[in-house]
C-alpha cells in the first residue's frame, strides 16, 4: 500500500462536494470537496505507480483546473477507470 500527496494549480470553484465509486478490486472511490487550492491524497493498494498517478491527474487538472480537496482510495484501478471516475466526480461536483 502506498500513500501519495500531490498538488496541482487550479482556481475554478466546484459547486458542491461529490463522491463516486467504491474501494473494490479494480475500482476506486473519489471524494471532492470545495477548497481554495487543489491538494490530492491517494491511498492505493498497488505501490510504485506514483509517476502514472501524477501523469493521469495532471492531464485531468489541465483540462479542468478546479480548486478542490481530492481524496482517492484506490484498490488497483487502471488509468482508464481512474479517468472515468474523475469525470463522474467532476460532473457531480459541477463547476
Amino acid at each position, binding site marked *: *500500500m502506498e500513500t501519495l500527496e500531490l498538488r496541482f494549480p487550479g482556481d475554478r470553484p466546484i459547486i458542491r462536494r461529490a*463522491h463516486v465509486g*467504491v474501494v473494490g478490486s479494480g475500482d476506486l*472511490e473519489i*471524494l471532492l470537496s470545495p477548497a481554495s487550492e487543489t491538494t490530492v491524497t491517494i491511498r492505493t493498494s498497488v505501490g510504485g505507480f506514483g509517476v502514472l498517478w501524477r501523469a493521469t491527474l495532471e492531464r485531468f487538472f489541465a483540462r479542468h483546473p478546479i480548486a478542490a480537496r481530492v*481524496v482517492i*482510495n*484506490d484498490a488497483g484501478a487502471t488509468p482508464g477507470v481512474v479517468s472515468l471516475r474523475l469525470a463522474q466526480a467532476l460532473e457531480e461536483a459541477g463547476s
Partner: protein
Amino acid sequence: MNATLTLLDRTSFIELNARERAQALLDPGSFRELLGPFDAVESPWLMAQGVVPQSDDGVVIARGSIGGVPAVVIAIEGAFQGGSTGEVSGAKIAGALELALLDAQAGRPIRPVLLFETGGVRLQEANLGLAAMADIHAALIALRRHVPVVGVIAGMVGCFGGMSMSAALTSYLIMTRQGRLGLNGPEVIEQNAGIAELDSRDRQLIWSLTGGEQRVATGFADQLAVDDADTIAHVVRAAFDTDRSLPANSSRVAHWRDRLSRLPERAEGAALRALSPGER
C-alpha cells in the same frame, strides 16, 4: 407485478451499489445519509495491514421514509472487503439498530431495513468484528420485540457468516433467486471439510443449498422477489404494511425441532422440500 415486467423495464437491484440500493428503497427525495463518506469515519485497523480503507467502511446508514413512515435503511457494500463486518461498519449497523430501538420504545414509528451483502466478520478486525456482530444480534432481537425488521438478500455476494444469523433474526426476509444465505460460505466448507463434502466451484449445488428459491421453498426466507429495484422497494413496503402476527422464525423452537426430528436418513434438497412445504 413481476410477470408483466419485461427485461427492458427492469432496473437491476443487484447492479446498484449500497448507496443506490438504499436510495431505491426510500421514498423519493427522502434519502439522508448518516456518517457518509465525507465524515470519513474509517477503520482504524486496515492501513496498518496494507489495506486501503473506504470512507464509509462499507456500510451506508440512510434515514428517510418508506410509504411515508420514518425509516432507516442499513445497506452493506458487498464490493468493499466482501461486505465484511469490521469495528466501524459493525458499530454503524448496531448503533443504527440501537437508535431505532429508542424510537420504537418511545412510540415513534420506525421502519428498519437491512440489505445484506456480506461474507461475515472481517478477519482483519477479527475480535472487534465478532463483538460488533454480537451487538448487532442483540440489537435486532431487542428491536424486533417492538417493530418488524425487514431484510433483503439480493446478491451477488449473498449473506454468510455471523451476518446470516442476523438475517435469520429479521421479522421478514426477502431474497432474489441470485441471492444466497448460509452460515458458512462454500470455500470455507470446502477448506474445512474437504471437496467431497462441498465443491465450491459447483454453482448448481451451492444455489440448490443456499439460493433464494430453495430458502423460500423451505421456510428459511419469506418471499422471493425478482431482481428489479421497483419490485423490491414495493415488496419491502408491503412487508411493513401487512399486519404480521407470525412469531419470528428464530423463536419457533418447538416447530423447527419437530420438523428436524422427522428427517429421513439421507435428506437431500427435494426430500427436504416435501417435508416442509414453504409455509412458515
